[in-house]
């Protein structure tokens, strides 16, 4: 069983009291417990079981404008005492930073909505095994599938965030995740692909045969890939990949990278950064949302933000410290975005495929070729060549490159948004990208 609210609160208040007694002017404590149980299968037999029970505490002590922090997994009072003493000693010799402070009191969340993020259902390992058996049976129907690996994880978490201004809140959340990775082989090639499902509630996850079938289908389609010649092309990014551009965007508008001057979107507030059909929303209060939050990691209330409307950048993601630096109020985004998404575009998926006679359809990228300082983008890619709306053959061992400043203005979105992750995008097309191949 995960630790209950009472236990977590008692640990938090022990730390608050002790730090105050030592002379700390402000204190903030986060204490949490998370238990997860995973069962993994490989080629239709049990491969691994893994149970994880993790406690974690993080304490920040302030002395005026001086601040330092400690974290630990050992919640025995005696250990906490040693650590808090050490933390406060460190705080004393850390230099002043005028922007250090707890969040403004009036911004703290006071109305905690129930977002239905916790499902108390427990699925026994034997039941997980049944699910995975069915999944792998379906995944391996086609003889070209030579290896299947799948896993089922149930996770339950609870946490409390408390600070010396009287904030003390927390909530439970749960997730149920199943995934399947398949390997297909023929005389010419061996390829791997996957599918997964992750939800707050057990009843919402995809059924096992559908998951297995999708993974196998993705993988078999990739056999016999070709390398194409270097070219300027329009690229369609599958939903798995298009959401990555939103994550890069979120990183670039975090108050921290703006304040440090290390973002290609610095000084772009109220300016067009996307084509004028693009809207980006960050919605924290989505019921059962994978990125939903009742407050941010400092306790600040979170409202829905329309980050981009008609292509124009409206907001940064602001936390207390960097907000003070930029002379902005925190908008409850310490810890980043919540449920971040592009609103649907106007074109349907099939029409998007037909929009050019030759299109590269990307299903996977590899490498870390995203430079948020310059906006330069260059990654390895796999996918398909699409001609006149039809998938012709799989493509691999190529790279795709561009710069976000131009790429963002060349985005066309389909109208097939769904909420599968915490960051979600419809299928996306970007014109005029450089493909390097043969």
């Amino acid at each position, binding site marked *: 069983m995960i630790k209950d609210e009472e236990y977590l609160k008692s640990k938090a208040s022990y730390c608050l009291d002790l730090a105050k007694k030592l002379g700390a002017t402000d204190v903030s404590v986060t204490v949490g417990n998370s238990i997860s149980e995973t069962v993994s299968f*490989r080629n239709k*037999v*049990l*491969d*691994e*079981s*893994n*149970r*994880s*029970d*993790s*406690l974690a505490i993080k304490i920040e002590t302030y002395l005026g404008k001086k601040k*330092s*922090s*400690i*974290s*630990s*997994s*050992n919640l*025995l009072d*005696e250990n906490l005492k040693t*650590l808090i003493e*050490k933390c406060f000693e*460190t705080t004393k*010799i*850390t230099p002043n*930073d005028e922007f250090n402070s707890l969040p403004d009191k009036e911004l703290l969340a006071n109305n905690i909505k129930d977002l239905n993020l916790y499902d108390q259902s427990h699925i026994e*390992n034997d039941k997980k095994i049944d699910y995975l058996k069915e999944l792998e049976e379906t995944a391996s129907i086609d003889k070209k599938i030579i*290896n299947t690996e799948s896993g089922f994880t149930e996770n339950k978490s609870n946490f409390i965030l408390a600070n010396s201004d009287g904030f003390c809140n927390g909530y439970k959340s749960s997730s149920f995740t199943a995934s399947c990775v398949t390997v297909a082989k023929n005389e010419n090639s*061996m*390829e*791997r692909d996957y599918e997964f499902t992750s939800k707050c509630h057990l009843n919402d996850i995809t059924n096992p045969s559908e998951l297995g079938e999708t993974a196998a289908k993705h993988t078999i389609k990739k056999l016999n890939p070709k390398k194409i010649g*270097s070219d*300027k092309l329009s690229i369609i990014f599958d939903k798995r990949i298009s959401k990555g551009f939103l994550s890069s965007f979120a990183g670039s508008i975090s108050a921290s990278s703006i*304040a*440090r*001057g*290390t973002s290609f979107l610095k000084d772009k507030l109220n300016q067009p950064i996307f084509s004028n059909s693009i809207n980006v929303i960050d919605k924290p209060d989505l019921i059962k949302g994978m990125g939903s939050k009742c407050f941010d990691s400092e306790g600040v209330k979170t409202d829905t933000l329309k980050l981009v409307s008609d292509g124009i950048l409206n907001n940064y993601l602001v936390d207390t410290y960097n907000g003070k630096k930029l002379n902005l109020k925190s908008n409850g985004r310490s810890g980043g975005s919540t449920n971040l998404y592009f609103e649907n575009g106007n074109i349907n998926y099939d029409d998007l495929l037909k929009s050019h006679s030759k299109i590269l359809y990307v299903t*996977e990228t*590899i*490498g*870390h*070729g995203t*430079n948020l*300082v*310059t906006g*330069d983008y*260059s*990654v*390895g890619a*796999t996918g398909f060549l699409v001609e006149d709306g039809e998938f012709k053959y799989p493509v*691999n*061992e190529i*790279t*795709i*490159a561009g*710069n976000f400043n131009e790429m963002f203005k060349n985005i066309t979105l389909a109208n097939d948004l769904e909420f599968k992750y915490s960051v979600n995008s419809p299928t996306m097309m970007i014109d005029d990208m*450089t493909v*390097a191949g*043969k």
Partner: protein
Amino acid sequence: MSNFFDKSDLTRKDVDKIVSETLKDCDDGEIYFENSKSESILLDDNKIKSSNYSSDLGFGFRAISNEVVAYSHSNEISKNALKNSAENLKSTLKSIKGTYNHEIPKTNNKFYDDINPIEQKTLDAKLKVLNKVNDYLRKKDSTVKQVTASFSGEQKSIEIIRSGGEALTDVRPLIRFNVSVMLEKNGRKETGVYGIGGRQSYDEYLKNDNWKNVCEEALRIASVNLDSKPAPAGEMKVVLGPGWPAILIHEAIGHGLEGDFNRKKTSAFHDLMGQKVASEGVTIVDDGTIDKRRGSLTIDDEGTPTERTVLIENGILKNFMQDRLNARLMNTRSTGSGRRENYKHIVLPRMRNTMMLSGNQTQDEMIKSVDKGIFAVSFGGGQVDITSGKFVFNCTEAYEIINGKIGSPIKGATLIGDGPSILKEVSMVGNDMMMDPGIGTCGKAGQGVPVGVAQPSILIDKMTVGGTKL
């Protein structure tokens, strides 16, 4: 050495008893205790931005029968927690029985000292160095707009208890010192990053004002990039500099030679043992025994002493890297490559320090032989798709080569290649093998572990460069 049962209701005898009972019908398994202390101190934007100290204590209990691994971990060290874990393991393995192998090789040299690097330098002294770095760089060059410098240090103590009461211990220090600088000139911004580290005290790495060299290197990379032009796109010849660019070896070859992917036959290398996978003259080893290196370990995380494993000898594939589980199932021995990020994770076969050994040619000869290509000196990260064998890595400092001469610097770009065939495209191997500066972290299955790489300069006849200029 940590006493893990201090302040708990456990005695060593209790632990031995629970471990032996739980593992009696299993093929393998152990309990792994870990106590880690770590710190990170960061200077950013002219200020000490954060100073964090962390202490983590916990155990991971593992039981293996046949191919099935049962694992349970907790950070509560008590009789109750251990018993719960034991029950959890038993319920997974139920009727799957094995025969425990009590044999474990026990000798090795120690490759680092039992120090706690965090305690060896005062916080005040660390803050002073970080402030000196900031002042030095900002005074040195007016185009410097941002400086980030950090110390991170840790001491990890582990104890592995196997069935029968056999215990193995290790104390592992690790530090890293990092500087990143951003320049801005004529509206253009570029960054340069450099770091050093390994399994010694901070001062070993910082003596003789060595922090200045780290600053200079970060500044040099950023300055080169300020003048860079768009990188070319397409297939061409690539000369790689010595040292850190060996992450090519790590991605292209290393991961594909880890035992688990080959037992499962999901690696592009699984049926290539004994075959020619590289040009003649190419020898690659994975070595966990180099004194005080970031990727070195006295014993691995299953208690097996590390070794120098020859992976490819003169072009021929000789060995995979093995942990105990995959070695047993593949009928071979562990190479001391069983590693885990910490007690929360299962053991996987992983790299340590992966190195391509020197050949006879010079970097000059390589450059002169290239009509059109690129010379890549410094890299960010890399990644590989084990199954298709395709891998990438990102240049952070590179130049064009035209008619045998090094030309202008080019913007960062991703290079992509095919693991099983790339080493056959190596046509020259340099005589200048160099270790990396001690900053690598390898990710696999969500677990990060410290690793090292080394190589001489090499010439690759054909690789795809992912620039924007056609």
